[in-house]
């Protein structure tokens, strides 16, 4: 998929050099933030072999809750944020109960989506919009970390990564496992390149935008949890073979519930970041292509619809691919059809690749 991304960038760059300008790359990053955060939550649900259609609308509801409490009721921002996250998790908790009861998640969340579309009308005040312009709520998106601090953060993150790798290296040596220093040097160099390259690009204008930091921190936590912990192994086990996981004593139902709760929290954050960027919440918050883009991002990035395969990076990668297409189309002033055609095609190709990888062939029965 990195290749696909490179091709997309090359094509648009050849049409318009402005495509890879610092300014446009920053725009692109900010455009994909909402999709990436939501896709991250979707990845957790896909990994246990479920699906969700309701989280985009839920993100609108959560944003309405947060904006209503902070802007209209005047409560402090952290209270609003906490309430939104709690609301997101509560809604997902209810839906997960239905899923664990045996109703297919596709149906539960389809129904949930419709119900939430009604709920947002209830949560919003009678005029059906909340403007957050000029309020502390707007600073979620508008705040920026000064370039100097950003570089320092990148340096600290790189050092932490190197230290963690060294720690693992020494652990492996202590039990006589194979361990090679290249497993430290190469990834560390890569991490440093990405972090400093990213900070360099994104601080050209007025420092590192806050949403970028939010995404980065969420990805970091998700990476640790899914790849380094027992929870992570169980997450993949449940997606790989529920029966086997159950027999191994893994609480399958609880793992499914956890995934939905993670998605609920991600939806809340995505909704608040989006509302803060759009300077308001309205009936249409979370509607439109957001849901499909988030699912498409996860799948295009390489997370399987059949569960058990994929990684949290697919959220970022897929969101980048999809965002890059729409950004390029808009930059070149092409018509919207082109964007839909290209995004749809990339999605279908990605799913075809997924099916081939999972089943060995596109058509069942052929080997």
């Amino acid at each position, binding site marked *: 998929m990195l290749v696909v991304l490179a091709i997309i960038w090359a094509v648009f760059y050849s049409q318009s050099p402005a495509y890879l300008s610092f300014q446009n790359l920053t725009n692109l990053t900010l455009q994909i933030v909402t999709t990436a955060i939501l896709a991250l939550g979707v990845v957790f649900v896909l990994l246990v072999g479920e699906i969700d259609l309701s989280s985009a609308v839920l993100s609108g509801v959560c944003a309405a809750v947060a904006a209503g409490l902070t802007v209209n009721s005047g409560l402090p921002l952290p209270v609003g944020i906490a309430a939104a996250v709690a609301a997101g998790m509560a809604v997902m908790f209810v839906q997960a109960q239905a899923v664990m009861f045996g109703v297919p998640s596709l149906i539960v969340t389809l129904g949930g989506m419709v119900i939430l579309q009604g709920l947002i009308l209830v949560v919003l005040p009678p005029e059906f919009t909340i403007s957050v312009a000029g309020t502390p709520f707007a600073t979620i998106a508008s705040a920026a970390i000064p370039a100097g601090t950003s570089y320092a953060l990148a340096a600290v993150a790189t050092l932490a990564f190197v230290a963690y790798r060294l720690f*693992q290296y020494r*652990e*492996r040596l*202590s*039990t*006589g*496992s194979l361990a090679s220093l290249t497993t430290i040097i190469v990834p560390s160099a890569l991490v440093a390149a990405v972090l400093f390259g990213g900070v360099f690009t994104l601080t050209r204008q007025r420092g590192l935008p806050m949403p970028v930091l939010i995404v980065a921190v969420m990805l970091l936590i998700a990476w*640790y*949890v899914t790849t*380094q*912990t*027992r*929870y*992570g*192994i169980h997450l*993949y*086990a449940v*997606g*790989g*073979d529920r*029966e*086997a*996981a159950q*027999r*191994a*004593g*893994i609480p399958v139902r609880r793992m499914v519930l956890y995934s939905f709760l993670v998605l609920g929290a991600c939806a809340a954050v995505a909704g608040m970041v989006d509302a803060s960027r759009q300077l308001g919440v309205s009936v249409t918050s979370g509607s439109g292509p957001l849901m499909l883009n988030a699912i498409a991002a996860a799948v295009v990035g390489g997370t399987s619809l059949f569960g*058990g*395969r994929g990684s949290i990076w697919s959220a970022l990668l897929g969101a980048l691919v999809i965002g890059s297409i729409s950004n390029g189309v808009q930059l070149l002033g092409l018509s919207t059809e082109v964007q839909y055609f290209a995004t749809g095609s990339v999605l279908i190709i990605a799913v075809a690749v997924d099916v081939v990888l999972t089943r060995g062939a596109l058509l069942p029965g052929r080997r």
Partner: protein
Amino acid sequence: MTVDSEPQLSDPSDGGPHSTPLLELRKVSKHFGGVRALHEVDLTVHPGEVVALVGDNGAGKSTLVKLVSGVERPDTGEIRVRGQHARLDSPRAAAEAGIRTIFQDLSLCDNLDAVQNLFLGQERHGPVWSGRRVRRHVMEEQARRVLESLSVKLRSLNTPVVALSGGQRQGIAICRALISDPAVVILDEPTAALGVSQRGEVLDLIGRLREQGRGVVVISHDMRDVRQIADRVVVLRLGTRVAEYRRGGYTPSELVSAMTGAHEPSDD
């Protein structure tokens, strides 16, 4: 310890080591609705002994496995582990009693690698503040030791097990059972889906379990397997134990007629 056992109906002169049986079933019965799946079945397994459980389809073999692996509970009768009465109410309870079962489908997660499968559900992990960080190096080291003890050869511990051969997968499933160092290992049809060389591999594995002094129960339909590895053969038919033979004390046709009831061998 515990010499309270009255003389057993079966195996009066068991060839195995003179020790308390690791596992003992006494007059165990199990009904499913109106179906009599097991009727007053006795079974003993000694350390370092391979007991084959044979019988036609529906004879009750899988039911017996389910009882001793804690999946089902017997209606009547008693299960004893190392001479002590045992309540095997759940797979976990059976595992804690030292009984591990390798089901026919192996129950491996195809998308996980060998180490993750070996430790699935019993991962070695760090404290809660670390988010229960998996101690991969410890697991890898232990995995390598267990795999080596049964001479299971894998090219890499990090590839998903879906890419491995049937014999290797069976090997991983058996090694997984060994992680908790069980006294009794039960295998349901371990060679059913395997080719000739892999079948030999698995039979060797079972031989090594015996050398390690474990009690082994093998369910098999394959008379060659049974002849080759079993120290004792227990024949079930329609839920009752109809015959029992020691190694070398039977001919293949005797075994088959006991299974099918062609001409009754002094029992039932």
